[in-house]
């Protein structure tokens, strides 16, 4: 039958030659290839990353766990406008807005603030659209922090207790893998 695409390749099944039937030449060829790998592994540094001691650095543009930023005076930047929740394609963000009371000016920057702000990390696809939507530069996806595995689903709903940036940056959670400044610089020069 004529082939429609006329690209069919007719394969000829030739009988094996004596060298092929004797197996030995092919076996020695294979052995020499693995031996090259043996010496390469024995002499050169292997590509293996010895995990607990070494970690593979993240890309500098990696989008990890969200953080709700504070401004330079330590006030929460979020004003609960809801643009991030609207932008979110996975509908992972919910929030309840509240009015700032008198005497709370040192806590919240605007008159309106988020009483609760929750992100479901199981729904989140870490696309970063909330970060782009935020007019107050409040939501950021950190480059060095991932949502760790947990046993219960409700533990993946991150509230303000876990999202808001601590007042002193030293108190930031050490959970997740930290990218050192050197590693970040190295990656930036590599990608540039």
């Amino acid at each position, binding site marked *: 039958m004529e082939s429609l695409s006329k690209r069919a390749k007719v394969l000829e099944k030739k009988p094996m030659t004596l060298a092929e039937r004797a*197996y*030995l030449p092919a*076996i020695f060829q*294979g*052995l020499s*290839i*693995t*031996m090259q*790998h*043996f010496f*390469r*592994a*024995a002499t050169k540094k*292997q*590509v*293996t990353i*010895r995990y607990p001691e070494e970690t593979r650095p993240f890309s500098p543009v990696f989008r990890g766990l969200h953080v709700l930023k504070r401004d330079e005076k330590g006030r929460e930047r979020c004003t609960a406008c809801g643009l991030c929740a609207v932008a979110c394609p996975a509908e992972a963000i919910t929030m309840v807005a509240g009015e700032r009371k008198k005497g709370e000016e040192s806590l919240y920057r605007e008159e309106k603030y988020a009483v609760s702000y929750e992100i479901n990390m199981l729904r989140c696809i870490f696309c970063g659209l909330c970060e782009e939507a935020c007019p107050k530069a409040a939501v950021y996806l950190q480059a060095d922090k991932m949502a760790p595995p947990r046993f219960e689903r409700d533990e993946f709903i991150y509230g303000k207790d876990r999202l808001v940036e601590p007042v002193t940056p030293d108190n930031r959670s050490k959970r997740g893998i930290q990218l050192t400044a050197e590693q970040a610089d190295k990656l930036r020069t590599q990608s540039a």
Partner: protein
Amino acid sequence: MDFPPLAWQGVVVLVVFGVSLLIATYSTYAERVIAAFLQDRVGPDRAGPFGLLQPLADAVKLFTKEEFFPAGANRALFVFGPCLAMITALMSSAVIPFGNVLQFGETAIHLQGIEINVGMLYVFGMVSLGVYGIMIGGWASNNKFSLLGAIRAASQNISYEIAMGLALIAVLMMSGSLSLREITFQQASDAPFVWQDIFNWNVMKQPLGFIIFIVCAFAETNRTPFDLPECETELIGGYHTEYSSMKMGLYLFAEYINVFVASAVMSVLYFGGFNFPFQAELRNWLVSAQGLELVTASNIITILGLVGLFAKIFSFIFFFMWVRWTLPRFRYDQLMRLGWTILIPLAIFNILLTGGLITFGIIK
């Protein structure tokens, strides 16, 4: 020949026993490191320096695992299978001449477990018995995969033993003796010609026989590319599918001991055993130039020969592992075709060739 005291011989047997176990233990480590290196990986390097304590960790793990008996298994035979595999594997190393004689005053210690004049037949007998361990274990498991693996092991071993025996006959035609020690001595050379030492090894006179023998050795020890009895892709684990804990460990151990014995037999039969190049010259030099007594010089040569034999054995063990991590497994019909229609006719041709060469006095 005056026999050394029985006590010394017992010590030698125990040492050979211990060395076989030690080599099998570290074969597991070596296998993993070599596999890793051949695949550009690191291999075990956590337990101790360079991971050298890994076999200990493995042993602890195996001993503390659950001992599982499948429903409907024949319990007695289920335990007996791995024991038999282990016993026969260990017994076959007893007749291998690891070295010449060590002379201490009146006592002469032969570095060989048992000196019998049918040593090669003994090794063959033990290797043939070894398949019973696999057969019994596979049958007693009450599992179709185990049984299939056991049947494969049996038919594979029988098929390849024929070619192996025929390859060996060519060696025996030249040596005229079944004693491994005698075969070793015949490969020594006192000729002054530089390359004479290596040219006197049987592998130079029997290259075809050696290739047949080593291929059959791979099949007899159930190593890749002929590891069809365990064949994970088709039979899960073959004869040891149902085995767990140290019973599984014994099967794996028996395989490594078999590899060690096969390497030792190949070194003795084809690679001159404990002979090494320039041994006669070295002994003469030690006596004449260094002024050592002949006994001391001979002892030094014996120890060097022992080291040399183990170097040969380790190269063969490395080769076994190298091939395992290079070649894929044969299909069962390919295995049988290779054994019956290629290796056996080749081995018979080799016998005829050897006979012709001996008749015309080209080799002796």
